[in-house]
């Protein structure tokens, strides 16, 4: 970078109106003294030596030209942004799930994963909701917050929740007609341990607040006379 000028650059070509200068191109050439620079340099503008271009490899002509001109799709350089988390949802907020198996359950928010989904837990002992991912759109954030500092959530990310890929076994004809001998998929022990570890800390903070445990165990439902647009959550 060149050194900063002490005085700001003053143009020698004042504007008469925006877009129209006082002096023409030829007058400006004279004003800037470009004729003097040329004269000093022997009739040519001084210029740096161009950087030597790297030697390009010899390109062979292509073997095959397609018969028709195929249009190339336009380049798309957009990068998807991470889902914006609602301001009302902070770590430790109690959320109400609105859809799915645990519809109506009140649940503790832990953190937002990189895919944009929210990591959430019951805690499992209180209302049967395990460590689970949930979409922000299917959730009401209440203003009740629990302190969850002290819980280590680093090991939970989207890969933790990925489905396990089973090797497909080729079936012979006889086996097709046999009843599917699939045993119920059991939860691996380490996931249970993770659940217990996260919940142990949470349950302690929950039992510190009176009636919060019963609150999380109960399901939310709209009763007669409740107007959702007037309710404060």
């Amino acid at each position, binding site marked *: 970078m060149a050194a900063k000028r002490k005085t700001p650059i003053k143009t020698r070509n004042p504007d008469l109106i925006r877009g129209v200068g006082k002096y023409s191109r030829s007058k400006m050439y004279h004003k800037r003294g470009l004729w003097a620079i040329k004269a000093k340099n022997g009739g040519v503008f001084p210029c740096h030596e161009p950087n030597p271009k790297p030697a390009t490899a010899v390109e062979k002509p292509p073997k095959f030209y397609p018969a028709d001109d195929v249009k190339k799709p336009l380049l798309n350089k957009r990068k998807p942004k991470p889902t914006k988390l609602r301001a009302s949802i902070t770590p430790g907020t109690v959320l109400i799930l609105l859809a799915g198996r645990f519809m109506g359950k009140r649940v503790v928010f832990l953190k937002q994963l990189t895919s944009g989904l929210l990591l959430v837990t019951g805690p499992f002992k209180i209302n049967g909701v395990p460590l689970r991912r949930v979409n922000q759109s299917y959730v009401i954030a*209440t203003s009740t917050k629990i302190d969850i500092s002290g819980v280590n959530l680093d090991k939970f990310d989207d890969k933790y929740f990925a489905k396990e890929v089973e090797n497909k076994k080729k079936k012979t004809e006889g086996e097709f007609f046999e009843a599917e001998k699939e045993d119920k998929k059991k939860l691996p022990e380490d996931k249970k341990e993770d659940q217990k570890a996260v919940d142990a800390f949470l349950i302690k903070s929950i039992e510190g607040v009176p*009636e919060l445990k*019963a609150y999380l165990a*109960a399901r939310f439902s709209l009763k007669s006379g409740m107007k959702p647009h007037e309710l*404060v959550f």
Partner: protein
Amino acid sequence: MPFKRYVEIGRVALVNYGKDYGKLVVIVDVVDQNRALVDAPDMVRGQMNFKRLQLTDFKIYIPRVPKKKTLIEAMEKADVKNKWENSSWGKKLIVQKKRASLNDFDRFKIMLAKIKKAGVVRQELAKLKKENAS
């Protein structure tokens, strides 16, 4: 059944409609058949249609169009705020506001408290019934 609450200078009224909904104001002057000049300690004095006002039982003693300072002093002397909050109308409004601002957790706690209270009442009733029957 004569009227008890009159439109007069110093009558405390509740605003029923508009930007200042729910505020207690004092009628400070009457503009014409439909409008009054109205003032409160925390608002700029302005005109308001009578249809937007609900008269209350309270009245303070002020001269016509008093200075803001005089108005505030008169309101303090008559203790309008406390009298209003202790009146049944004022109490009802406070409860309504509280109910509207309840959290989901608060509503849950209230439900538990109601059930508990109902249980206690029922027990007492059962006791009294037994005494009466025997």
